[in-house]
């Protein structure tokens, strides 16, 4: 089980290293989680001062979840790595 887990993690790291981005199913899962967090159930108004203050703080947490998704965008910077490497390999020894 440990070996399978390590193999899966290695495959994931190799993928992100070479493509510069997360597999679509992983990034979409992150998006779904963040979406769920940001679209959480609204706290009911009770007339309690604590509840009113907590509701405002929950708004902050929901927004932070959306904001943290921005980190995934950074991975897109390296999305052209493979294509750049291929340009460099335009010449290969078998051409001779």
């Amino acid at each position, binding site marked *: 089980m440990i070996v399978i887990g390590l193999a899966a993690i290695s495959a994931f790291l190799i993928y992100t290293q070479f493509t510069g981005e997360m597999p679509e199913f992983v990034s979409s899962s992150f998006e779904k989680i963040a979406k769920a967090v940001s679209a959480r159930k609204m706290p009911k108004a009770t007339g309690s*001062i604590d509840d*009113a203050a907590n509701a405002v703080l929950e708004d902050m947490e929901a927004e932070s979840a959306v904001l943290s998704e921005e980190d995934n965008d950074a991975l897109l910077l390296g999305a052209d790595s493979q294509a750049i490497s291929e340009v460099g390999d335009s010449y290969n020894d078998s051409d001779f």
Partner: protein
Amino acid sequence: MTVISKRIFFILLAAVFLVNLAVPVLAQNRAKKAVGICNRLEALSTTVGGRLTTREGKLEGKRNDRLEKLVQRWETRDSRREENRLRWDENREEHLTKLEERAADDSQKQAVAVFREAVNTAVTTRRAATDVAKQTFRDSLHQLVASRQVAVDSLITAYQQAIQIAFERAKTDCAVNVEPASVRENLKNDLKAARDEFHRDRQAIDNVGEQIQPLIDARKTAVESALQDFKAAVETAKQTLKAAFGENE
């Protein structure tokens, strides 16, 4: 001689025979390739050049995809953020209305009005600060993409020039009847050196993690600071309101 020794002797004899046959054929092939190099220069140059153009096109496609993906993600996220803000504004309003309904006298009503003002200001300030942090991050990311593109383009130009120089040198050598084997070897070495240099320089550009991390850290620090200020403002407003309602802890 035993039977086994005889077998080994014949196997060795056959091996020597085969090697003697193969070596001249291989040498002949190499010589043929070397002699033909001057005739094949144009075709070889076209092959490498064509491959380079195709791959540059593929790279351009990847760049466009990346930009489209970024813009699409940003638009989706911004519209989701706006929807969420509206929902939370409505929810906050419901809480504030309930508090107003609870206010028993003018003094408590005034305290709720102060609370309302303080909370609304805190929310507006926090949102403005996180928006600035978000936009700064996006602008910086955009800038990184652009500067990476410039760096890679200059790398490709240098690579193209090196390839061109290598073929020109080979053509010149062919024209002055340099030994074909040397022309072939020199061209091969020049092209390999150009490719190695490209990959070496590319690695210096490809340190994505190192370039991105400071941006992520700066954004997180700015957002964290805004959130701390926000929490402090809400806590102060809450305690002031509780005092007015006689609910001090």
